[in-house]
């Protein structure tokens, strides 16, 4: 028998009221936990995706659109840049590795990324981590043939030049195995279908990045798509170039030089992601403020609920006082009760918050290829829990003072 026994009994005696007040705390905590977790986890996830690239070079315009397109395989495809820029960058002494990419087609929500096999052989998808095949092989790729296709005169007929329509698919592209074939649509899932069929050559191991839901095709095949051949806009052009430079100084130097020119811009993906999250941070703040308000209202409802119960508990308090309980003891019991209700709600909220995060993680993984760990416990959740328990204690102070002032003789009198 301890004070906790009394607290537990008091809570159990008012089951419905206790459950409702705890549930309102749980709701607030769940939203706070989910917002904090999704914010941090997705930020981490987006950063991870950007680690493997120093620079992304694309058409002048929105750096965010360029990064979302090339690194995260999101957003509408940007305009193109001349293939010559890629060739120039590839030859630049400051560049360790350059990989061209061309986008614009989709298969069941997955973006087709036309690229070279060097993306898999030499690029690091994240720092220290290269792409690995789970099964099959890489698509066949011949840079010379690509060069020929991209630099041929507009009226050049490619008949007789057999294109390789092969693909390597990310780990989260469901339903495609080596040997599977698929057709793509132009501009999105509701765009016109291309006639060509690609054969899956290999499936990549999961990387925990947006690449897991992308379909990589031989860049040459991109330019053999009949509708692309017909479109003047694609001729001799690519969407972007992914660059790995020979150091931070080289990256800065190169970016400055490219951005000074009229044809393209170079962006540092990690910097763009920071800007993106500054924007998202404002939305997070609003969400956090709303959920803090929910918790505050829950705290007030605990105060009201316990305060209203004090009239019916006056006799019980007087009995405890008659048995020798000090005023501070009954004060502690009420404050502990309010804190316990908040703690219960807080723990339930943590659980619910992680479930919400898990649901959000599935959506983020499916839509953005961002891997999250929804069950990972974060240090700031302890702060939230501590804050909620403190709020409960504060909410308990007013009814506790009423308990503190209970007069034993009055409380025990038959009329009370």
């Amino acid at each position, binding site marked *: 028998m301890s004070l906790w*026994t009394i607290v537990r009994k008091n809570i159990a005696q008012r089951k419905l009221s206790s459950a409702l007040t705890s549930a309102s705390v749980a709701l607030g905590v769940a939203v706070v936990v989910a917002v904090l977790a999704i914010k941090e986890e997705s930020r981490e996830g987006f950063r991870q995706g950007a680690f493997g690239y120093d620079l992304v070079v694309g058409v002048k315009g929105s750096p965010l659109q360029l990064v979302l397109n090339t690194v995260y395989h999101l957003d509408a495809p940007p305009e193109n840049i001349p293939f010559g820029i890629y060739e120039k960058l590839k030859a630049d002494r400051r560049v360790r590795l350059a990989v061209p990419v061309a986008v614009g087609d989709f298969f069941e929500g997955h973006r087709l990324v036309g690229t070279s096999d060097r993306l898999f052989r030499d690029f690091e998808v994240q720092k220290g981590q290269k792409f690995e095949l789970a099964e099959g092989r890489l698509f066949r790729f011949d840079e010379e043939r690509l060069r020929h296709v991209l630099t041929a005169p507009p009226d050049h007929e490619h008949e007789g030049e057999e294109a390789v329509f092969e693909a390597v698919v990310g780990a989260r592209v469901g339903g495609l195995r080596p040997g599977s074939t698929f057709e793509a649509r132009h501009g999105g899932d509701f765009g016109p279908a291309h006639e060509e069929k690609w054969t899956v050559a290999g499936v990549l191991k999961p990387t925990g990045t947006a690449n897991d839901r992308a379909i990589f095709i031989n860049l040459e095949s991109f330019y053999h798509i009949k509708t692309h051949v017909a479109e003047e806009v694609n001729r001799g052009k690519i969407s972007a170039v992914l660059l790995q430079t020979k150091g931070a100084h080289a990256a800065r130097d190169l970016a400055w030089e490219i951005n000074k020119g009229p044809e393209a811009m170079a962006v540092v993906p990690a910097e763009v992601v920071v800007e993106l999250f500054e924007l998202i941070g404002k939305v997070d703040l609003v969400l956090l403020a709303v959920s803090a308000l929910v918790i505050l209202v829950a705290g007030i409802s605990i105060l009201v609920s316990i305060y209203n119960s004090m009239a019916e508990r006056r006799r019980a308090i007087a009995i405890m006082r008659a*048995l020798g309980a*000090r005023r501070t003891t009954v004060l502690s019991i009420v404050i502990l009760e309010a804190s316990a209700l908040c703690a219960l709600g807080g723990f339930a909220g943590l659980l619910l918050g992680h479930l919400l995060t898990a649901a959000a993680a599935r959506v983020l993984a499916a839509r953005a290829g961002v891997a999250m760990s929804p069950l990972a416990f974060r240090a700031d959740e302890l702060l939230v829990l501590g804050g909620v328990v403190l709020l409960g204690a504060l909410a308990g102070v007013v009814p506790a003072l009423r308990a503190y002032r209970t007069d034993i003789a009055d409380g025990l009198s038959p009329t009370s």
Partner: protein
Amino acid sequence: MEGVRKGYNGTPVLSIGRLEIPKGAQWVITGRSGSGKTTFLNLLAGILTPDAGTVTVAGTPINLLPEARRDRFRAEKIGFVFQTFNLLQGFTALENVLLGMLFARKTDRARGESLLDRVGLKDRMGYRPSELSVGQQQRVAIARALANRPELILADEPTGNLDPKTGESVIGLLKEVCREGGETLVVVTHQPQVMQSFKDVTDLSCLSGR
């Protein structure tokens, strides 16, 4: 009690020149309605403090103690039996007894069980008050009052809510357990059959001249 006076809102309720109840005595306090019987018990328990005079229990002038020490003294030295039993409803019989020990900071489950056994409720320890008869509830209250081995047991109309037969049995038990433990027993009652079973009866109306 020495020179004790107590009143409410300027109206005197109790005035006692000197009253000494010997250690181990079994004493009945009676008096007509409004004679201050409950006030008398509350003064003895340290629940109320007199406007003047001294209340000494087991050698300690309790009205001179600071409130927190008076609470502790009450928990350790005084047991209470009420007319309406005053058991906590959400607690079992045993928990109600242990609650009496909690505030004296000496919770002893085995003693709680043995006390309930002593008052004939061995097989009702896990029952809540609502599951017990009124006689059984008063027995739990007696066990609770004895929990901390007090020096003084105060009983305020302990048979007021019981039928005569049950009342007789409860008074008999109360006297018996106090005799066994050597506790001083002070019973406030206006029931003649209760008074008849005690040797020492003090009429508060006569004592305070009201």
